[in-house]
Structures are given as structure tokens and as C-alpha cells.
């Protein structure tokens, strides 16, 4: 009987704190994909719960005076200046915080598909996801770590840095930077058909890329666009990498 008292006390304390917690949680039980759009820096991490979590400790809550009122220039149903809406199996998360505000930090299950867009010019950091990742920004850097893919990146003026834990053979990977550099690390045993273009930059790699045979005409064109088509470990999933003005660093793990 004595033992039960501390447990009950801890439970009561936990419930009290939980009641005070201002985290936003949305179940991802029936969700296949989460689309996130924000003006601020976006940080996506994984957790072991089947839910989307915007934690009070890592995100800026709206001011007390705004509680219970509606914003004029944005939408908010989370009290974090973020609007979350479910459309069939897709969960859309839109942040209306200004560009210079603190980052938007979101936790999701690692197996969910994600699509992230920084609407203005901010960075995107994504780590540990094991399903499709799409990321788009205009001027920020994109950092995607410990993923399996497929990965799709469109980056206009920032740098892109990706580390693949393994490369999924499910469907194509495509990374396109208009101005910045691209730095990609993949496991040495990855099977892939790799097409790399560096029209104004250079490709640096330590991978054994075996060039695919092309017709003379094709060779001429590929030389002028500085494109190389090659097979890695006898070929596999399609990987297209384009850095229009920057360099590409393709590394083996």
C-alpha cells in the first residue's frame, strides 16, 4: 500500500503538468503525407508517436493577449500561428509567422511522406525520415540527414547537403540547384543510374562511376552541357543531380 502512494503522486503531478502543456498534437493514424509550408526556418524531426507534434518548448506560442481572438492576415488553429488541416490522407500545415521569426519545429513519425516548402528565403533541416522527402526553397540552405529517399529537392539560390543512410530503389531521386553547391553522400554499394549536370561548375567524386555508352551526337551534346550519365554498381534507381552554377560533391560513405 505504501508503494502505491508515490506512484499515485507521480501520476497526479504528470497529469497536472500535462494539463498545463500547450503542445499541439494531431494524430497521423490515417495520414499518408504531410505538407508543410512556412516563411520561417523549418526543422523536421522524427519521434516514435503516430502524431504531428508542435511542442511548446521548441516553438513560439502566440502572445496571451491573442488567445481566443482570430488573426487578420493569417489562419491559426494551433495557437502557434500555424494552421493545420486534414484533406483525406494528406495533412497540410501552413505557418503564418513572419520570415524573421523563430524556426518552426515539427516532430513526425519517421515513415510518413513529407513535402516541405519555405515560401520565402529560409533554411530547411530534415533528419531521420525513412520515406519520400520533397523540399523546396528559394534562397536558403537545405540539409537532409539520414534519409532513405526518394528525395526531391528544388533549391534556387542556396546550398543543398544530403546524407543518405541507404538509397531506396522505389522511385527516382532528383536534386536541382540553380545557384548553390550540392553535397551528397551515399553508401558505396548503392545501385543507381546517375545523371549529373554541372554546366558552369565541376563534379567532384570518389565514387566509381561507369560511363554509359552514348552515340557520338549525344556525347557532343553531353560535353557541351557538362553532363555525365553513369551506372553505379551495375545500375538501379534513377538519380538526377543538376547544379546550374555551382559544384557537385558526390561522396561515398
Amino acid at each position, binding site marked *: 500500500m505504501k508503494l502505491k502512494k508515490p506512484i499515485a503522486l507521480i501520476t497526479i503531478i504528470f497529469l497536472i503538468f500535462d494539463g498545463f502543456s500547450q503542445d499541439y498534437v494531431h494524430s497521423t493514424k490515417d495520414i499518408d503525407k504531410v505538407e508543410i509550408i512556412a516563411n520561417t526556418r523549418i526543422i523536421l524531426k522524427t519521434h516514435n508517436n503516430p502524431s504531428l507534434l508542435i511542442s511548446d518548448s521548441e516553438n513560439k506560442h502566440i502572445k496571451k493577449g491573442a488567445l481566443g481572438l482570430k488573426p487578420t492576415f493569417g489562419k491559426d488553429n494551433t495557437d502557434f500561428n500555424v494552421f493545420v488541416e486534414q484533406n483525406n490522407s494528406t495533412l497540410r500545415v501552413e505557418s503564418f509567422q513572419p520570415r524573421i521569426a523563430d524556426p518552426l519545429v515539427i516532430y513526425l513519425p519517421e515513415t510518413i*511522406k513529407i513535402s516541405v516548402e519555405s515560401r520565402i528565403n529560409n533554411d530547411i533541416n530534415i533528419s531521420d525520415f525513412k520515406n519520400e522527402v*520533397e523540399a523546396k526553397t528559394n534562397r536558403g540552405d537545405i540539409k537532409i540527414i539520414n534519409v532513405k529517399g526518394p528525395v526531391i529537392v*528544388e533549391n534556387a539560390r542556396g546550398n543543398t547537403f544530403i546524407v543518405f543512410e541507404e538509397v531506396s530503389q522505389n*522511385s*527516382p531521386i532528383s536534386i536541382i540547384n540553380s545557384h548553390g553547391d550540392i553535397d551528397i553522400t551515399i553508401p558505396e554499394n548503392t545501385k543507381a543510374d546517375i545523371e549529373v549536370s554541372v554546366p558552369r561548375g565541376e563534379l567532384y567524386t570518389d565514387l566509381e562511376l561507369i560511363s554509359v555508352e552514348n552515340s557520338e551526337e549525344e556525347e557532343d551534346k553531353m560535353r557541351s552541357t557538362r553532363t555525365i550519365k553513369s551506372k553505379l554498381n551495375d545500375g538501379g534507381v534513377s538519380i538526377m543531380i543538376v547544379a546550374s552554377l555551382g559544384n557537385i560533391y558526390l561522396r561515398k560513405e
Partner: protein
Amino acid sequence: MNCKEIKYLITYYQDNNLDYVSKTLVEEHIKSCSSCTQIHQEFIYLIDTINQIQEELPDNDLELAFNDMLAKEKEVLKISKSRVLKPKNKLLKSILKVAAALLLMISSYLFGSYKRNTSQINEIAILRQEKTKMLTIATLSLMENESASKRIQAVKYSQELENPDDEILNALINEMLYDKLVNVRLAAARALERFSENNMVKNAYIQALRTEENTSMQIELIEILAYIKEMRAIPKMKELLNDENTPIFIKDQLKSELKNLI
């Protein structure tokens, strides 16, 4: 899921193009339904067969040998009509009988082989038609997919079609002009290159150069239009060259390509 839906999804399942939930549902259904298990097995067999027998072509020597043999046979028949063979002894008669039997057997064998080859050619043609049909369906349906990676997969499927119809070309053009991600637009632009002699494709490249704002796509389009020597692109190229918002490296490329075109 019912059997009809499973039949539709089997292509995607086999190509690993289903999301986790759909994949699991298909697997569970196949396990519990003998009819769909058979369809799945037949599909795997069909794909394996297509991949294995692509290089098998009828042997010209075989046909020639058969024709030669047939000609000889006709010759023998002619001789037998013109002159009645009257063997002088029983031994000669027996030898001729054995020879005739052997000739008949060889002719039958060669004729059978020829027929088998003809039926194989028909089978290959049917399988190729089926493959084209499946690739066309997969291309068109995946282009509607929400996932950008799956849309690029659709573009890759279209590249496996030897002579894609206008519906496929229009779908590729649509992706090149209007997809929200440059990754899909650029993949479509590259896939369309082998049809750059087609007027519809040429017009689409010119239209894309007029509307495209992404510099990676602009570089690609300028390269393609210069490569196919499309003179109608010159006015837009000049306009971009004179536009103060055009990045310097694009202007450098425009100058270089315009020199070659004009």
C-alpha cells in the same frame, strides 16, 4: 480491396510504386485470393518472358534450309511423275523406301520448327503490345500522382516506349510546361528530346522558353533549342539577352548559342 482493384494495382505493386498501406493491402489480398495469386504469377511470368525473349529472332538459315529441302522434295516428285521407277531388285526397293521415309521425317521436322518460330514471333508481338499498353497506362496514371518522384517515374516509363502516341507526348509536354516542381519539368524536357523533330514538341519547347523562370530549366531549354536549330526561338532568346533581370551566366549562354544560330 476487391479483385478488380487488385488487378489494376498489380503493375504498380510489381514495380514497387505503391505506398506502404496499398502495398500491404495488395499483399494480403494476393495471399488470400487464389485467382489474384494466379494473375500475379502470370504477370511476373509475362514480364520475365518479355525480358528473356527480346533477342530471339527467327533464324534465316532455318528458313533457307527448309526452302531448299522443299525444292528438293518437289524435284523428287517431278521425277516420280515423269518416270515410273521400277527397281530391279528388292534391296534397291527397300533402300528407296527408307530414304523416302527419312526425307519425310526431316521435312516434317523442319516444317514444324518453322511453324514454331512463326508462332513465337506472333507471341513476341502480342507480348510487346501488352508491354506497351501497360507502360502507357502506368505513365498516364502516375503523371497524376501527388508525389513528384512518382511523376518523374512516369516520365521514365514514357522513355521505355518506342513510339509513344500523342496522348503520351501531350502528357509529357504538360509536365514540362506546368508541373509545380522544376525536377519534373526538367525530366520531361529531357524525355521529349528524342521527339524534337515533331512540330508539337518544337512548339512546346518555344512556349516553355517564353514562360519558364527557373534558371536550370532556362539553360536546358536554350541548349535544346540551339541543338535542334529552332530559329523561331531567336526572338525570345534576344529578349532574354536584353532583359536586365536575366542572370549573367544565362546571358553568356544566350550569346554563345545565338552566335551559332544566326
